[in-house]
């Protein structure tokens, strides 16, 4: 964790759904970053999901001190919304409806976060489920547009969506495609929703971390720790050890202007600074994207390195070298022959860190691999729906009381929106891969 100035940007975490609740609780119990402090809100549709014996059981038995932390979180940081008797039943539409109908309850808890100025709201959800995946896109859109809760147009909303394991059933991938789309675009006009969407794939992270534990909870725990590292690394370039600052606006403004604002973190942490050069750490990071992507299609990159203070002081690592290494790396590894459209590099010297940690946030990459992993299951589920009068009824097998109707036109709209987003992304990649301009001709056109 890096030191943060008192005046630096304040971050808050809003985590909706069981999986995201686990990540936030782990952050709150172990990793508190001064930029976030205790501005954490856990949302869920059922008390069962946030009962320690269920969601946090593993963490509470792992460390006895967690019980005390849980008691404090339970008091004012867990918001149970909606009237559903047993959650959203993995149905995103239920999650969305519950959030809409019980927004007043959620509003009270969000007020406790005291959002102000240019605060960043980091929104977490798993994409396979119903509660978080359903409610969070709605909430981002609602908070952004509603006066009184946030500074309209000034707060930034970063969303992190976790793609389910490859082996999970079709419904989860139907939810995933809908979730990604709704986080990217929402509302009647399909405007940009989250300012930046980070994607993390459970199966990919598990493979990268070499997790072999058979216990699901232990596997989640390790993945969640890695996600928390991502949050810390994103905050670091706004902290006091940063040799070059990356403002929050730098993270989202240009990607939003370009129209492609999906990213994935590539992490390489715990490198021995005696062994690793920063270029090798960078290579290692990009070999480890947290979703399956082809880095050669990435059009944007935020490259963040946290190094022990002494190695920065003795000149082993410097911002100037880091910039040059990043430039060369981008030319060689990113889309096009000039290293993508956008690149920021920030080296952070930390008194607390003993290792060289590098994170590359690659953005604007082709979503082909992610979508192709989900598409078959998406269609499997969609085609299994019984459509009557243009509507399909979704019910939870485990609890028949949970049922909701989805208008198939809405699903078509979601498909259209993701397709148009993909088309724009591919177009940007293609543009970069085009041959270089005829300089002689262009200069002539410019009057030289």
């Amino acid at each position, binding site marked *: 964790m890096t030191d943060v100035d008192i005046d630096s940007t304040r971050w808050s975490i809003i985590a909706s759904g069981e999986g995201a609740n686990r990540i936030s609780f782990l952050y709150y119990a172990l990793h508190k970053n001064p930029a976030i402090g205790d501005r954490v809100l856990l949302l869920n549709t059922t008390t069962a999901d946030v009962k320690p014996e269920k969601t946090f059981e593993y963490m509470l038995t792992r460390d006895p001190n967690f019980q005390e932390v849980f008691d404090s979180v339970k008091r004012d940081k867990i918001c149970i919304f909606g009237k559903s008797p047993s959650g959203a039943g993995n149905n995103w539409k239920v999650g969305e409806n519950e959030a809409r109908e019980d927004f007043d309850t959620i509003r009270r808890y969000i007020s406790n976060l005291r959002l102000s100025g240019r605060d960043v709201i980091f929104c977490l959800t798993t994409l396979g489920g119903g509660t978080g995946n359903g409610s969070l896109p709605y909430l981002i859109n609602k908070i952004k547009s509603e006066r009184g809760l946030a500074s309209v147009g000034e707060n930034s909303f970063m969303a992190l969506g976790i793609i389910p394991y490859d082996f999970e059933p079709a419904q989860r991938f139907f939810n995933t495609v809908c979730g990604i789309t709704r986080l990217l675009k929402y509302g009647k006009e399909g405007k940009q929703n989250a300012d930046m969407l980070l994607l993390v794939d459970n199966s990919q992270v598990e493979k990268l971390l070499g997790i072999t534990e058979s216990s699901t909870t232990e596997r989640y725990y390790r993945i969640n720790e890695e996600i928390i590292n991502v949050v810390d690394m994103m905050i670091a370039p706004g902290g006091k050890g940063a040799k070059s600052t990356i403002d929050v606006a730098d993270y989202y403004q240009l990607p939003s202007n370009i129209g492609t604002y999906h990213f994935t973190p590539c992490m390489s942490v715990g*490198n*021995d600074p005696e*062994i*690793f*050069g920063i270029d090798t750490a960078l*290579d*290692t990071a990009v*070999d480890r994207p947290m979703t399956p992507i082809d880095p050669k299609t990435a059009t944007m990159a935020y490259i963040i390195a946290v190094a022990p203070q002494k190695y920065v002081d003795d000149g082993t690592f410097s911002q100037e070298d880091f910039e040059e290494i990043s430039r060369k790396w981008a030319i060689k590894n990113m889309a096009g022959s000039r290293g993508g459209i956008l690149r920021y590099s920030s080296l952070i010297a930390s008194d607390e860190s003993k290792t060289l940690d590098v994170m590359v946030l690659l953005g604007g990459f082709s979503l082909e691999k992610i979508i192709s992993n989900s598409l078959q299951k998406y269609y499997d589920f969609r085609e299994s729906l019984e459509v009557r009068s243009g509507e399909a009824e979704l019910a939870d097998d485990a609890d028949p009381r949970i049922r909701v109707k989805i208008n198939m036109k809405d699903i078509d709209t979601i498909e259209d929106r993701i397709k148009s987003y993909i088309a724009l992304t591919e177009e940007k990649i293609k543009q970069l891969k085009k041959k270089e301009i005829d300089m002689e001709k262009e200069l002539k056109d410019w009057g030289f």
Partner: protein
Amino acid sequence: MNEYLVTALAILISIGIGFFLLLEFGVSWVGYFVIAVISLSIIGSYFYAWWKTQSDKTVSKLKVEILVKMKNELLDMEKVVSSAENLMETASYKQDITLLVNNLIKLKFYNKELKLSPGVEKYTLTFVEQQGRMTEQKLRTLGAMAAGSYRPKLDEYIDSLRSKLERLLEAGYDIGRDLDSFNAAATKPSKSLRDLVGKKEDLDGAMIKTLEKCVGEATRLATTSKDFGDTANVEKEVKDIDQSNFESTVSHLVTAREGIKGILNDTFVSQHQKLTLNVKRAQAIMASENVGAQKRRDIDEMRKALGSMDDPGRIQELKDLEVQFKTFTTNAIEDIHSKIQKMEKNIEFHKPDERIWTLNAEIPALVEHVDISKKIDEFSKDAINALHALVVQLDIDEAFMKIIENYQKIEPLIKRKLEESGKVTEDDLKVKYVEKFMLLYSLKNPETKFKENKLTSPKKAKKR
């Protein structure tokens, strides 16, 4: 006066009461009243006489106290002024004190032996008090004037003592701290003549102690130097020291020290050079990060101490440093050897190829050879050899462990680069021990070749 007034008033009241009784009750009542008045008068007189005696005694006691205090102050001032006479002319101050004493004798406060005189009884307490205050005031003025004259003389005296101490320090005597303490005492603020005289006494005491220390040092050095030359002259100088005379003592000590330097110089220079050379070698070997910060600090301090030691008179300290060097080196050898032995158990588990990790088989014999009881030349030769072999091995072991710990992260990079271009060179991989990583990769992947710092794969490179 009050007693008479009260008595007259009492008689008048008694007569008045007598008349009243005579007129109202008759003569017999007057008779009883007269008897009662006479009885009360007798008892009252008795108590009054007793009370009056007690009161007079208190006044006399107070007078005595004032006179004793005055006498003590006079004697004390006389003594302080006398103590100052070795630095300044005190006759006029003594004369003023005598005048004050004579005046008090003339007033019959004291006799000629300055004992209390019965003549003081005739003075009231107030008069005695006035005289006491006047005397005290005059003594204070006299003291201030005397201190004003004494201060510049004392400053000169302190400067002369300081310069003597500096001469001794320059000659090589180990009195740096003594000089610091002397300077601290000399700058202590002193206002009164008594304080100034006290300061001189303290500084004289400190000077005597320092000279005694130097005499001890000179005697010890003269004894030590006997093995290296004729010390008769030095011994004579030490013998001739008369510590009551600071100037001559300092001169003798300086001459003795010069003599010692002459005798010890060659030996000191030679031993100093040898030890410096050995410490430098050990320091260079121990520059490796793996040796540990504390050991590096220790050897650095030893080198620093040696560097500041340039006086042959400090030959004993040089010898002590030699012993310290031997002990330190022996301990460092034991520590590093034990660390290496522990690491080797761990390394053997990985069954490393000899191109990645080798063990210097001579180490146990080299360590065994180091014997602290040997003379410094022989000891240093063995110790430096052992230390060098150990530190080289330690660096090899630490490097191997780092390679093993980090290989998991480097392996996919090498694999990817091989897939991309069919070869990996040092420039492709910015890591420490790059050759060893490539070699390890080639050992784990027999289809690849590692030759002339280049790793190649026979498989055709994939296009990314």
